[in-house]
């Protein structure tokens, strides 16, 4: 069962622009994580935000979490061509052995 759903499914921007991806989920969570996947490769963890946090930063990444709306957003500032990848949100429920439920992902294309 899919808990997270990303929006948009695909995003195309120019280098230097900001990219915003959104994620919605259905049930209460322990934390929400964002992962990145380059074409045909494994996923790489980007950032984790706990359910009692509202905003988190890591380099050019900014993640927000609104538990009342059951939604999160990932902002990549000053994007680069190397940011071209698919981005997935994943939710971890309470008591779940770190089991994650992934959304379908957003495909980001950054053009030079």
């Amino acid at each position, binding site marked *: *069962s*899919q808990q997270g759903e990303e929006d948009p499914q695909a995003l195309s921007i120019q280098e230097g622009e900001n990219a915003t991806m959104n994620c919605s989920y259905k049930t209460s969570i*322990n*934390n929400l*994580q964002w*992962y990145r996947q380059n074409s*045909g*490769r*494994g*996923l*790489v*963890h980007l950032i*984790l935000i*706990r359910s009692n946090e509202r905003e988190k930063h890591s380099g050019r990444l900014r993640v927000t979490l609104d538990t009342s709306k059951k939604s999160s957003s990932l902002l990549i500032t000053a994007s680069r061509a190397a940011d071209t990848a698919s981005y*997935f949100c*994943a939710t*971890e429920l*309470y008591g*779940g*052995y*770190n*089991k*994650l*439920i*992934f*959304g*379908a*992902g957003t495909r980001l294309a950054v053009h030079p």
Partner: protein
Amino acid sequence: DVKVTQSSRYLVKRTGEKVFLECVQDMDHENMFWYRQDPGLGLRLIYFSYDVKMKEKGDIPEGYSVSREKKERFSLILESASTNQTSMYLCASSLGSLEGYNEQFFGPGTRLTVL
């Protein structure tokens, strides 16, 4: 750095064959996971394991089984491969903590084609 390796990047098998996908992690992680990834569906959990010889079904366990005889190794078995099991298979591991807040570390994936 955590390293998760998978036995093959690409695999081609015939319908009805028994298929073994191997995953090894080198950081003494408690938890290991097998996902399949299909276009438009994201990652779906097949099985996971939180300890040696322990396993739990994920969302789509039908047609699969797993084995974890050693802490570092988690195998996915397709008992009788079918064409609808053509997919990208991803293995992951995590440290394992009752407190949660653990990221998962992924292998590079195995793209399996069943003819």
